[in-house]
């Protein structure tokens, strides 16, 4: 392993008197892939934001190549060769790739005008170096999450970054895309780059990183080679307690079919989708990002217009023109896009939870909101879901991602649905919140609620679902059941390799 390139020395960081990082000492060595893991709120992102100039440490210093450096802004960090690929991409949707790559440090001609030709050329060669086929002139808005990430990495390369920090880089990626990313990261390491890989996905860290550092509640609790630590030890050190299996035992539904989709087609989006759902069943919808899983949910909800096909509940065809019709029919949806479509960050916990079900609280003579009953019900969710909030009147922007997700889930089930569609229910959520969410969903199934479980994390599809429908290019590629649900089969159907091999 190479010499130390970047060192954090006794770094402390407080937010309003609350310590987030406590006396962190960390050496980052040239040419290594360093994994930093920890639950949400453990301080991973804060530490990296200090390294990349977004935050200033309360005390302690950062040493780069033996010299104490002051990283006051991201521009300072960039000049030192430290680049951060943030979890939420920092790209301007309306601008083409090359403009994004050089944003803020545009190449100029001698006359002082933008040198578009040089920027395009440089972008093209960087993209080629990454082995990706992206047009430098393509606009960001039309790109997939994976492509946007490549542009972010390209941005880092353009400034000759020596330390590349990636914050939860795989959250938005499919398994296939993750593999491409891993190959790329290894290639960058071979080129001498140092990569700091922040994640809470243990499997990825184990597969990719040379060394792993574990943070818990602002303390550095572990630092050692990845090869010398097992999954279980990593998980235990992250949460600081013993862990059982993260998935609850599956409940085998024996009820009749309560929900059915027949030949659902939305031109250009999904085609001829059919599946059935039994009472208390958890049906997985697997597939690559863009395979049409979320689109099916949106069509069921009336957010997209179907050209043909029917949706039946208890054998009767439903007419759903807008989400209100779906809610009335007992269908509820937990969005994958938490902040964009799931919760209102400016609303309090109470107002978020009852947003869909508000009519149930307006049963008095003048249809006024029964605030007492509303608060009582919401307090019930806060208690049973262990939602960490100072009060019911806290705005959601003050809650952590995991707690926001729990509020979002409470909101989806407050309508007392019979059919619950959850879309990436554990995205951006830490291990213990994940575990709790699995328990809730399992519990709902036991109570007879049928669930459509959309996820890109195969692990949870396999751990949670009774049956799995695998989608590819807007069509049902295959259905797996019981012991037949395994990772390889799902990937075969999702990528189409299985079919091609058979034909």
């Amino acid at each position: 392993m190479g010499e130390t390139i970047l060192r954090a020395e006794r770094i402390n960081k407080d937010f309003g008197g609350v310590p987030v990082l406590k006396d962190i000492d960390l050496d980052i060595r040239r040419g290594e892939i360093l994994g930093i893991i920890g639950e949400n709120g453990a301080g991973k992102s804060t530490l990296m934001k200090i390294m990349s100039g977004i935050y200033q440490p309360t005390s302690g210093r950062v040493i780069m190549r033996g010299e104490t450096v002051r990283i006051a802004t991201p521009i300072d960090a960039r000049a030192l060769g430290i680049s951060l690929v943030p979890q939420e991409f920092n790209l301007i949707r309306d601008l083409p790739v090359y403009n994004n790559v050089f944003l803020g440090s545009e190449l100029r001609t001698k006359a002082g005008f933008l040198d578009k030709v040089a920027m395009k050329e440089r972008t093209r060669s960087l993209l080629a170096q990454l082995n990706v086929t992206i047009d430098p002139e393509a606009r960001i808005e039309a790109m997939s999450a994976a492509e946007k990430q490549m542009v972010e990495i390209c941005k880092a390369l353009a400034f000759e970054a020596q330390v590349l920090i990636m914050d939860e880089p795989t959250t938005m990626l499919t398994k296939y895309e993750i593999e491409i990313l891993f190959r790329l990261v290894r290639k960058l390491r071979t080129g001498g780059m140092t990569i700091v890989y922040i994640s809470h996905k243990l499997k990825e860290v184990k597969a990719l990183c040379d060394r792993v550092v574990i943070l818990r509640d602002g303390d550095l609790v572990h630092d050692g080679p990845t090869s010398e630590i097992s999954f279980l030890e990593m998980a235990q050190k992250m949460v600081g307690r013993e862990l059982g299996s993260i998935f609850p035992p599956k409940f085998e539904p024996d009820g009749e079919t309560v929900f059915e989709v027949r030949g659902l087609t939305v031109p250009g989006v999904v085609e001829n989708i059919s599946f059935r759902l039994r009472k208390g069943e958890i049906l997985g919808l697997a597939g690559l990002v863009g395979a049409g899983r979320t689109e099916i949910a949106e069509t069921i909800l009336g957010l997209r217009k179907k050209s043909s096909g029917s949706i039946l509940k208890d054998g009767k065809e439903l007419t759903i023109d807008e989400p209100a019709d779906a809610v009335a029919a007992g269908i509820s949806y937990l969005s994958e896009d938490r902040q964009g479509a799931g919760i209102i960050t400016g609303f309090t916990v109470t107002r978020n939870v009852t947003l869909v079900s508000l009519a149930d609280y307006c049963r008095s003579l003048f249809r006024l909101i029964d605030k007492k009953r509303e608060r009582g019900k919401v307090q019930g969710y806060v208690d049973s879901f262990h939602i960490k909030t100072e009060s019911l009147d806290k705005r959601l922007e003050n809650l952590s991602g995991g707690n926001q997700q729990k509020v979002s889930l409470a909101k989806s089930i407050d309508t007392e649905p019979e059919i619950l569609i959850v879309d990436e229910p554990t995205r951006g959520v830490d291990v213990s919140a994940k575990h709790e969410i699995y328990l809730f969903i399992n519990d709902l199934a036991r109570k007879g609620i049928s669930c459509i479980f959309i996820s890109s994390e195969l692990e949870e599809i396999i751990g949670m679902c009774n049956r799995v429908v695998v989608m590819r290019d807007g069509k049902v590629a295959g259905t797996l059941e019981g012991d037949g649900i395994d990772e390889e089969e799902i990937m075969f159907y999702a990528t189409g390799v299985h079919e091609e091999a058979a034909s």
Partner: protein
Amino acid sequence: MNATAAGKIDLEKYGSLIALGTLFILAAIIGRPYFLQIENLVNVMRQASYAGIIALGMTLVIISGGIDLSVGAMAAFVASCGVLFMNWILQASGGNETLAIAGGIVVMAMIGLLAGALNGLLITLGKIVPFIVTLGTMSIFRYVSLQMANAGEFASHSQNFGELGMAKLFSLDIGVGVLSLPLPVATLFVLATILGFVLDNTRYGRYLCAVGSNARVAQYSAVRVGSVRFWAYAINGLVVAASAVLLAARFNTVSTPNFGLGFELDAIAAVIIGGTAMSGGRGSIWGTVVGVFMLQIIQNMLNMAGLSPYLQGVVKGVVIIASVYIQRQKQ
């Protein structure tokens, strides 16, 4: 924990009230001795209430994430139609004042509602941004009124309508002056009470905030976003009609070039000073009421200090910007 949270909310809630109190004391000092005279205070309230009533409807529109620039012109249009209709009934009924006034008020309410609904439809079904729609209808309402009156006045032929404009709910000599409650002031408070209650205690109020805060989340949460937005403009139209009735009655005539001129700016200013977020999602009716009185007190105070009306306008502009700046710092 709860106690500190409550303390914070109180500061947020009563911050503008404290500002109003401070301004009041300042005005009492600068405008001494006239400002504190009961008649002057009643007059300040009355003057504030015409645009103030409109500011209440504007609060709903702004909370929904929109804006309505057409309110002043709409008031002129509503009042013009109303006075014409009243005169027509007077003539047709052989001078039945009660019928004429009642009919006139009903017609103004309906036209206000329809005008607001037109804005709402263009915004929701037409999918045109509120700024553009109401910029257009502002021009339309104003120039249709001017065309109808040939840029002149519509004088009401009703005697009683003019008296209605001067009506006071009570008038009481309390020794140091005559304390009274003019009809427009009473209307302002009644409407504020109703709309404030709607905002806090009904589904519509909650949905309005949701739509203004994040329309996509609201849509996914089975809120009928279009309908919520539509009604904000329709209700605003109705509220504009209330102001139009009172202002038309005040002069018993409608001068089409001047009627309601600049009301949209006064109303928006009051809403913003009252702490409602321009980006929508949250706001307070009573904050707007405070904003309405603050603006009027400033004007009254500067009048008494002998500042020219032009410089008063400058001060008003500074106050609007400063109040938003201060609110931003607080967050």
